[in-house]
């Protein structure tokens, strides 16, 4: 590397510091915005995929008047007779609206002898026993309860307006922050009391099939046998999350279009030609014996300092903004339902492909937009440029 050339370039950037610093700031902001959006969507995609991965093969639900209602747990035995079904279990879960904090909690009833629960819950239950009258809560729930002076317990209100005091036995975290953060786990009997369920009532029935390739056939059999039930396969869950994610992608697309047009204006302005002072400087340098490649080298350094510098700085700022500051504002835009779910922290998902894509968008395009007009002037006769 020619350090004298680099020194000339730094001096050139310093001489036009208003223009160059503005460009650097705009490029840094663009990179930050796009990288932050990518980080958030990557993090969401990771969390949603984890949820889908842990979803049972088939979920059987019942509706009445278009609204979800409970099922009789005795159906489990009927369903187990269908060939291909490896296991079937009734689940008790639901949402609890905590009026004071205006948030919903997800309540999950567990049986320590059952293994159909999420890994996070299983590992939790392996550590200690969950007694009736106690519960485990996600970090977000713990925070909301503490804010409302429920440090050790919480008083649930049943449909019959009775108070049910449940003590907090512990706080759990899991790889999937999006769901577990708002979750409360307790014994099934306890949850039945809170929801006002009868002894044989369950929220839904989850089924695992022995051979995944038979899943559509088994789902069809269930649909035929129970036409009044809603049969949801793992693929349906995945599709519904994908639809949700596509809506988020729409927000991302809007951000991307804004960023793209801003960047396009910068690139267009650079491609449309150099200022007369810059043209004159190139002509002088050529007259002094600089070769075309010397000029292009200098311009390459200039473009790399601005674009690569802005890219690196933008990535660092976005990283800090998303994973340290927890993406204020942007998180609200992407997640949107803060009233429904207590706050959760974005998990660190570092996708090199995303960073590479952003690099291609920012650095080589800017470098080319700097080199092309400089090259056009550098290959023109000095006399012509100076005239």
């Amino acid at each position, binding site marked *: 590397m*020619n*350090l*004298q*050339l680099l020194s*000339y370039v730094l*001096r050139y950037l310093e*001489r036009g510091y208003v223009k160059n610093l503005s460009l650097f700031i705009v490029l840094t902001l663009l990179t930050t915005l796009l990288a932050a959006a990518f980080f958030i969507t990557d993090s969401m995609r990771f969390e949603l995929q984890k949820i889908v991965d842990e979803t049972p093969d088939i979920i059987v639900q019942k509706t009445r008047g278009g609204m979800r209602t409970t099922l009789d747990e005795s159906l489990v035995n009927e369903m187990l007779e269908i060939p291909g079904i490896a296991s079937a279990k009734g689940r008790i879960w639901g949402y609890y609206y905590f009026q004071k904090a205006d948030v919903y909690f997800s309540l999950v009833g567990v049986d320590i002898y059952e293994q159909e629960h999420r890994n996070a819950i299983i590992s939790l239950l392996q550590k200690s026993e969950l007694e009736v009258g106690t519960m485990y809560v996600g970090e977000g729930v713990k925070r909301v309860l503490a804010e409302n002076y429920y440090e050790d317990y919480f008083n649930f209100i049943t449909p019959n307006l009775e108070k049910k005091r449940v003590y907090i036995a512990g706080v759990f975290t899991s790889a999937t922050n999006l769901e577990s953060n708002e979750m409360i786990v307790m014994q099934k009997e306890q949850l039945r009391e809170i929801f006002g369920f009868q002894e044989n009532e369950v929220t839904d029935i989850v089924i695992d099939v022995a051979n995944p390739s038979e899943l559509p056939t088994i789902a069809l059999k269930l649909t035929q046998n129970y036409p009044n039930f809603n049969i949801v396969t793992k693929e349906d869950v995945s599709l519904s999350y994908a639809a949700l994610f596509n809506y988020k992608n729409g927000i991302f697309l809007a951000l991307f279009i804004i960023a793209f047009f801003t960047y396009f204006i910068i690139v267009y302005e650079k491609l449309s030609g150099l200022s007369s002072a810059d043209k*004159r*400087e190139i002509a*002088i*340098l*050529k*007259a*002094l*014996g*600089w*070769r*075309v*490649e*010397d000029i292009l080298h200098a311009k390459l350094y200039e473009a790399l300092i601005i674009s690569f510098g802005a890219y690196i700085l933008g990535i660092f700022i976005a990283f800090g903004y998303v994973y340290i500051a927890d993406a204020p504002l942007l998180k609200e835009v992407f997640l949107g339902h803060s009233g429904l779910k207590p706050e959760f922290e974005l998990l660190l998902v570092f996708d090199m492909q995303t960073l590479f894509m952003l690099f291609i968008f920012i650095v080589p395009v800017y470098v080319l937009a700097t080199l092309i007009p400089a090259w056009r002037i550098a*290959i023109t*006769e*000095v*006399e*012509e440029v*100076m005239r």
Partner: protein
Amino acid sequence: MIAIKSLTKKFGNKFLFENYTESFQEGELIIIKGKSGSGKSTLLSLIAGLTKPTSGEIVVDSQQISKLPEHFCSAFRRDNIGIIFQKYNLIESLSVRENILLPLVPLGLQESLMQEQAKKVMQQFEIEHKADELVKKLSGGEQQRVAIARAHVADPKIILADEPTANLDEKLVLSFINILRKMKSQNKTIIVATHDSRFFNLDFVDRIVDFDS
């Protein structure tokens, strides 16, 4: 040293040179005199390879500069030719020292070597005291000395000066003439294009080429 053979240069339909032949010897100081538009500056540009002839040859130090590809032409200019432009063509937002160092930048020399070379020419042309000042803050005479120092910094064999005194007062013209004498004593080939009559009777000028005739 410099041989111009059957040179033709056209601008549109107008011939500036038609089958022009001339030669300049090593160490010569030549004054090219002529009115504005007579082709003095264009001849210097052709010798420096800043523009190409319509036809004919320009051979500088056995290199056919008129036929050299741009890449080699720039390198040849850097190593062999120093140019003092009429309007000096300095980069105003750079300091005196930075302007003078510009021809050495692509060579990738050591910083100390470059600074030493710059110091030498700044001392030679009495501009060292302004080394760190921006060129735009200098007077016309000082700017001219910066341009001369810059033309010398790579120690070229040939110096081309285009109307070097066009914007200078009497005192500064005399100062330039003294500098010219100093350059001549260094055995450089110097070609000065000017219509300033004060150059025509200098005792150290080897030859005057009259473009008016």
